[in-house]
């Protein structure tokens, strides 16, 4: 298991696989206030990622993995680049 619950924080570690999606979903459904820690994540399976995208829990920690940090976490933080153009003024 690369997903575990520590208090009120769901920790994703190492390569997260398709089977991690179900427990993640269950924990978040049970308590939408739970935070997700990505610091140790090496990969997020699409199934895991889309749970995070759908439920948009608070995210803690910047993934060490460059791909995740650069391309994926911004989408989860609500900072999907295309939505934020330079503002006039």
């Amino acid at each position, binding site marked *: 298991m690369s997903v575990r619950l520590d208090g009120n924080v769901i920790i994703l570690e190492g390569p997260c696989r398709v089977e991690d999606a179900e427990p993640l979903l269950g924990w978040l459904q049970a308590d939408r206030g739970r935070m997700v820690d990505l610091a140790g994540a090496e990969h997020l*399976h*699409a199934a895991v*990622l889309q749970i995070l*995208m759908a439920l948009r829990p608070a995210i803690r920690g910047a993934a060490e993995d460059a791909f995740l940090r650069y391309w994926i976490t911004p989408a989860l933080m609500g900072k999907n680049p*295309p939505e934020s153009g*330079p503002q006039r003024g």
Partner: protein
Amino acid sequence: MRLSINGLAATVMDDLLQHFIVEAHELIQQATDDLLALERNPQATAPMDSAFRAVHTLKGSVGLFDFAPMGIALHAAEDLLGALKEKRAGIDSHVVDSLLACIGQVERWVAVIEQTGQLPLDAAEEGYRLARALRSQLDEDPAQAADSISQADLGWIDELMVQGRDPAVRRAQDRPLVAIWYTPRADCFFAGDDPMALLRSVPDLVAVRLSARDPWPPAAEIDPFSCNLRIEALSGAELDRVKAIFRFVPDQVSLHEVVGTAQEHASGMALANGGTGAAMGAAGAVGARMLRVDASRIDRLADLVGEMVIAKNALAHLAGQFEDGLDRKHLSQGLLASQAAIERLVAELHGAVMNIRMMPMRDIFRRFPRAVRDLAGQLDKVIDFSMEGEEVEADKAVVEGLFEPLLHILRNAVGHGAEPERLRLEAGKPAKTRIVLRAYRDGERVRVEVVDDGRGIDPAAIREAARKRGIAPADHVDRLSDADAIDLIFAPGFSTVSEVTDLSGRGVGMDAVRSAVERLGGQASVRSLPGHGTTIRLSLPLTIVMTKVMAVQLGRELYGIPLDGILETAFVPASRVLPVRDAEAFVWRDRTLPLVRLADLLGIPPPVEAPQRLKVVVMAAGDDLVGVAVDGFAERIDVLMRPMTGILAGMPGVMGTTLLGDGSVLMILDIPELIG
């Protein structure tokens, strides 16, 4: 070698850019026409489809160049049109306004590109502003917006590229990119696919956007094993490498090579290689005149050239017979036949070439509905504008030369002619001011009229203004007939309305209209009835290239007078010339016409011995007739008139020149202008 290859690339891009500019003008026009048609009839299908196509095509062409802000704005316009099209809901003038604002900006950008080869500096900001304005109308119905994005739509690429604050994205603008549009199948997890693993393995990612294929269901209903992702990304790697990664999911991914923005790159290279000459040449070429020609007209030319070859062969055959000692009679017959054939062909070739230059009024007329609409909006006037005779053709130079004058006349009709709605209703007129722009063929001339049913021109007000502004001496003004007084609106420095709008405040008056029309070999006149409206009438030659002139003699010199102004030639006994103050007049067909002597007009001393009979050319000068006394009439000729160029261009009274058969130059006179 590098140098020449770079030069070639620059040339190809210049070619592309030129075609883009021509095409863009057409598409902009098309979109404008369609939007205005939609505003009139919001349910119409044809203009909706056509507008969508025009904007879609334009956006696609923009993608070839480094004009991303334009692409973003157009993409938003396309999405909005797409949503409206889907919804089949009515389109109100507010939506039309925002779409026209976008198209109008694009038009201005294209004009700048035409001049400088690139977008202005503030384009990015403006592009976003337009896109936001358009999208804000879309957002009223987000589901539609989502639907309107198809995988063929790659405008988001522009969005990703432009706003990338990341240097990697900037760098990426210099090389081709692969756009990835990946929508994994819902059951892909069961097949063992991990779309994120695939995305991770794409080399050289420059942008990524993740979204939901369908809106997310409520938390309790989420199925963790059904994939609901959409992945859009840009990669700087070669297409084949990207393709290889997605080779197992070809049905779920679409890849597009975005041949980005080599243009800036290429011209930069040309400059770096000391190729300023090439760069200058490119700029010049962009400004070159382009002519779009119906292919059938070119086919006709090709046919004629084919016939010309046959005629030439016949001549060669004749020459061969000459060698063989054919008798004179046969030879001369053959020569005459051959000459006749070639003469006919030359005439037809000339006609065909002239035909190529003919273009319909539509090409300029179609820009007016938009202009009138904008003006009416600014001035808060309600206008019912219509056009007739768009299909009437004239020489390209004539048609294009008419745009500015007509625009000005229309401005006046809207600004000065149209009364406020309330006054119109009180006067028993329909609430909307009717303005008709009409063109029709009248023999060898084209007539263009702007008719309005507005307040008309008050001759008393014109007289008053003319006196006040010193346009003409007061006693002269008093003596003028009402029609002549109204004609004073064409006098230099005249403007009848005291309140200066941003339209009339440009220092362009009706005098500019008249002189522009006269430069084209035409005349401008006005008729107006206070309370009933005004008609401005322009009369123009079909072509300013081929002109029939009558040669007249003055001393030993020959001058040409365009035949289209001449009514007839007359012999007037000197005794019948009536002195009128310091001028002269004569009676012609029961009318008294002013008589002017060409020698006086040209400032040439008159002949020592006054002739007993004057040779007079009776011709039109503006709306009036005048007799012009000359020393002799010579033949009528068809000439290819060359407009005056260079320092001679401003020479008053001379329309142009032509070469005569003996090599001498014939000056073609503009008699109305000489009379002044």
